[in-house]
């Protein structure tokens, strides 16, 4: 039974229409992008559905690896980047799926598409939100990993590589999760689409992290690092260009 508003008789039956036709205004690209990011963060910090799922999964993965591998000190450093990026990639996929299904399941994607903004605003808003969620999970996973494996991961160069890798993964993941969200088999389809396309970013991240952790020459790290930067730039540019077609019915 719906409750009738107490002030039904008193409430205005018409709205005062703005003389300046506010309807014709359009928000700036940055303001609209930030509105989407803020909306996603507010909703997530109230429910913690997405971050908690990613976090629990990540912690389980690193604990399982810890027991499964039984590593000595030298081997630990060489497998750290692989274990970390495997964890980030799978946890990231969980988050990407959830982030886009929230929009799709309640028709909110239509609400976003109805806004008088360039559609790439939606892409950038969602990609930044997804990146923030990934970084939050990584910020919790890294100290836990450091304690479990007794490896120092708090180095600026290493954190920089993790940031670049996460940007690339969120950039391509947001685009592909938007595509897969429109299908019935999105949970299955996203990893199938995402992992082959994100392979360069994952390999480059693993190689760069590995080089830094094993104390390799900077020139050895430079190649995967350059690849990461180029990949990030290319994928953000591609997503900017094709997102309109991806969301088109």
């Amino acid at each position: 039974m719906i409750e009738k508003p107490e002030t039904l008789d008193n409430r205005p039956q018409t709205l005062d229409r703005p003389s300046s036709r506010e309807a014709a205004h359009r928000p700036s690209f940055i303001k609209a992008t930030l509105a989407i990011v803020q909306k996603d963060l507010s909703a997530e910090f109230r429910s913690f559905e997405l971050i908690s799922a990613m976090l629990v999964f990540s912690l389980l993965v690193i604990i399982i690896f810890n027991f499964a591998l039984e590593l000595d000190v030298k081997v630990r450093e060489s497998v750290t980047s692989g274990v970390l990026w495997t964890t980030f990639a799978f946890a990231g996929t969980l988050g990407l799926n959830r982030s886009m299904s929230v929009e799709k399941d309640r028709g909110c994607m239509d609400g976003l598409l109805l806004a008088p903004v360039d559609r790439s605003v939606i892409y950038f808003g969602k990609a930044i939100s997804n990146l923030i969620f990934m970084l939050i999970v990584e910020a919790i996973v890294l100290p836990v990993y450091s304690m479990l494996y007794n490896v120092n991961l708090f180095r600026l160069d290493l954190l920089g590589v993790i940031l670049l890798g996460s940007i690339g993964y969120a950039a391509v993941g947001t685009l592909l999760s938007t595509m897969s969200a429109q299908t019935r088999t999105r949970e299955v389809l996203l990893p199938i689409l995402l992992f082959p396309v994100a392979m360069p970013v994952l390999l480059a991240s693993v190689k760069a992290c590995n080089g830094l952790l094993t104390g390799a020459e900077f020139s050895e790290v430079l190649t995967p690092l350059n690849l990461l930067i180029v990949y990030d730039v290319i994928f953000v540019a591609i997503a900017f260009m094709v997102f309109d077609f991806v969301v088109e019915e």
Partner: protein
Amino acid sequence: MIEVKKLVKRFGLKTILRGLNFSVEPGEFVALLGPNGAGKTTFLRILATLSRPSLGDVKIAGHHLPADAAQVRARLGVVSHMPLLYPDLTAEENLRFYARMYGIGNMEARIIQVLEMVGLENRRKDLVRTFSRGMQQRLAIGRAVIHDPEVMLFDEPYTGLDQDASEMLDDVLRSVAAEGRTVVMTSHDLARAEDLATRFDILSRGVIAASATHTELNNTNLLTFYKQALAD
């Protein structure tokens, strides 16, 4: 306000709209009626810029679709049977988000104004997930009018509402139309359509099969007119 000429929409080999012609004058309230699968939702999604026409000419408020889609979206409010609201945000936060997406100045005053209009000012701080279906639908109308659109599209807005909630929605729809907006509403509820709309268009097999205003219906019952249009 809305002008559609020879509109065709195909999904693969299936043709949904077959050369549809349709026009609406400013301030008119048109009820778009028809059986399931007639193409009502597809047509409304094209008007809402959510789907591209395969062929034909669509013009809203002087802007062509899909070329001027962003300009059209700024003048359009859309309400469907899904509320397009975020359950983990409050009523106020939902409206604030959409107000920001539409670049509305004097946002807070506008949000209060809209919440009063849909009778939810006392629930402004409550999460949308705690709202009944009827309250969500009223807030959905608030979301759709937040930017003061000239044209409103309603796609089966009464779906899933109980009697009380439907009556409440009637009031909100009347107040939306009373502001001089142009309204197009799809519905299966002929009695409600007859009560609210000023014109009735019957969509059948992808074209407008018949059209009549209240005056043109004269003493004919809308149900009789509807059945006759589908039989022809």
